[in-house]
């Protein structure tokens, strides 16, 4: 799962979706049988996409996720970009591209802060199927 997708997924339990705690899912509790594993995967760079998606990224949530994954280097506020094709912006767009699209979470677990349900990620596919008692 890309870090970009991790910035959009929320708990799929119906009772949680009404509370603000269902997003973001936390990576702070990992289990021994599914240890956290990150990987770098090359993706074609498209500055337009990063420019389009940037306003919709929840930056505080991204900061939390990055910190839980062991990255404290991110700036505190959303970088502002006016022109995606200007050469001075290319480096920052490339950095965002590496962070959002090329960082893959291969395995690990995500926790909902509200209901404490753990979503496991295996082979970079998160499992959002709920056990019977949580489906409403």
């Amino acid at each position, binding site marked *: *799962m*890309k870090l*970009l*997708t991790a910035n*959009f*997924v*929320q*708990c*799929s339990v*119906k009772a949680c*979706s009404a509370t603000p705690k269902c*997003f973001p899912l936390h990576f702070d509790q990992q289990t021994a049988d599914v240890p956290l594993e990150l990987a770098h995967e090359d*993706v*074609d760079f*498209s500055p*337009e*996409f990063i420019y*389009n*998606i940037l306003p*919709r990224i*929840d930056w505080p949530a991204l900061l939390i996720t990055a910190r839980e994954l062991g990255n404290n280097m991110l700036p505190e506020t959303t970088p502002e970009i006016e022109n995606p094709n200007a050469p001075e912006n290319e480096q920052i767009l490339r950095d965002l591209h590496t962070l959002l*699209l090329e960082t893959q979470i291969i395995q690990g677990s995500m926790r909902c802060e509200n209901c404490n349900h753990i979503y496991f990620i295996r*082979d*970079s*596919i*998160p*499992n*959002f*199927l*709920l056990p*019977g008692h949580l*489906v409403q």
Partner: protein
Amino acid sequence: MSRPETTAPPEVFYSETESKKYTSSSRIQHIQAEMTLRALDLLALDPHQHILDIGCGSGLSGEILSQEGGHVWVGMDISPSMLAVALDRDVPGDLLLADMGAGIPFRAGSFDAVISISAIQWLCNADTNTADPKRRLARFFDTLYAALRRGGKVACQFYPRDDRQVEQILGAAKTAGFAGGLVIDDEDKKKNRKYYLILTAGNITTNDINLKGVKIDKQHAARRTSKKNRKEESTKEYINRKKELMRKRGKLVALDSQFTGRKRRPKF
């Protein structure tokens, strides 16, 4: 036409062998590609959008999303075997194992567009004793509406079993707040008929959707004949109209013949 929906739940039906068979069939690949291109054509999207593919399976439709316009997509499917095939094929999008009837697990405003090829008819089935198709449809469309940005668009190609399923799906979408309707391709060919549910979230003008080559159903477009017109019709026309109406309602109606609507001769 065989219907996998009547055979088994999706996660059971698309087993390892069935998933491989499905993905390697060149006929299915061709049909899926055609329908994905048609759905994209109807949506008329800007390039470089963030798209959700519901029922992505092995990523046949997703590959086209990456090729056409460089979209970044996330696919969700309920069948682990299908997703395993997608992993083997090394598709560019992100994959998610999730049940669409339990809700789309994304926060508000995540996607610019949603596409779904041959999937949402599965929602009309009750696969377990606790599953209620009506509630699953409502939950699906509610969370879908939330996951789209305002002005986001949806194109779902699906295979309804009958008109009741079409009505059920359209009704659920309208209740969730979507605007839009149904586009039917190849309407006169029963076997090749394709249904596309085209929806928009939030109020945008219809110009945003490419309706080129779409025929608007005359029955819906034309208002009912006015009372004035009806008075002018002959007895024969009146009888034929009423018989047609009763036939549509499924009543048993006498066959039409050359004697229909004629007077009996006085010497009978």
